[in-house]
């Protein structure tokens, strides 16, 4: 393969509006596009921090009438970069989000991380790194 890149991560959600409220209202993403397909009873919503042509985004799939899924143990989380992890956690809590871990400084990695839970229970990692973290 000559050229490839990661486009999106797809997660199935039980209540699309709750998820959109969370990812936009709490996590600061915006809805980039939607595709509702009543005939096949599903709806896709793409959300992210930037244009899909440049950044990797999240695809939320809502299957009509299915309000919950088995989360399993293989899938872990999506990690999201933040400028100020403590500030983001305070803001998320104020907006009704649930911080499940941290903020905590990871000595070995020189980064501050926290975990939050989305409405379906998927974990999201927040990562704050110094500007010169990567060479």
């Amino acid at each position: 393969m000559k050229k490839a890149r990661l486009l999106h991560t797809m997660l199935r959600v039980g209540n699309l509006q709750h998820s959109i409220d969370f990812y936009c209202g709490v996590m600061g993403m915006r809805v980039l596009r939607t595709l509702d397909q009543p005939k096949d009873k599903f709806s896709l919503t793409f959300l992210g921090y930037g244009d899909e042509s440049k950044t990797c985004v999240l695809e939320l799939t809502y299957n009509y009438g299915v309000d919950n899924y088995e989360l399993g143990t293989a899938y872990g989380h999506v990690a999201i970069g933040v400028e100020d992890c403590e500030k983001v956690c305070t803001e998320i809590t104020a907006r009704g989000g649930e911080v499940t871990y941290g903020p905590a400084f990871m000595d070995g990695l020189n980064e501050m991380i926290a975990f939050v839970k989305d409405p379906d229970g998927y974990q999201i990692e927040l990562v704050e790194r110094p500007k010169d973290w990567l060479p």
Partner: protein
Amino acid sequence: MTEVSKIFKGAIPYRMLYTMIRVTDLGRSVAFYRDVLGMREVRRETFSEGRFTLVFMGYSNKPDEMLIELTCNWGDNSYEHGTGYGHLALEVEDIFVACDRLGGMGVKIIREPGSMTWPVDETGHRENIAFI
């Protein structure tokens, strides 16, 4: 910068870094993402005390590039896939050539490449897709 992001400067997440999945056989997974999907190992962290290894795979090591984080726990590491997580999507230049190549390498093509069977959305976005 919009008004809102000025007010909440630093308090709003701003980009996706990576998606983490747990794997059973790290060597096999790294080989798959590297040799079959063409990624490279961007970095590796070994935690002897916590008994796990993290390997970050991606198409470039530019700081703003989205990566896949493979977590391998050294002890019990068989996992349930569940029904919530769907998939990762990769963009390729030529999906037909890509699937030919993958098929030739023994990768099972779950959905043969072709156009989506539903109409284009409001953005007029058109694409061919395949699943492996």
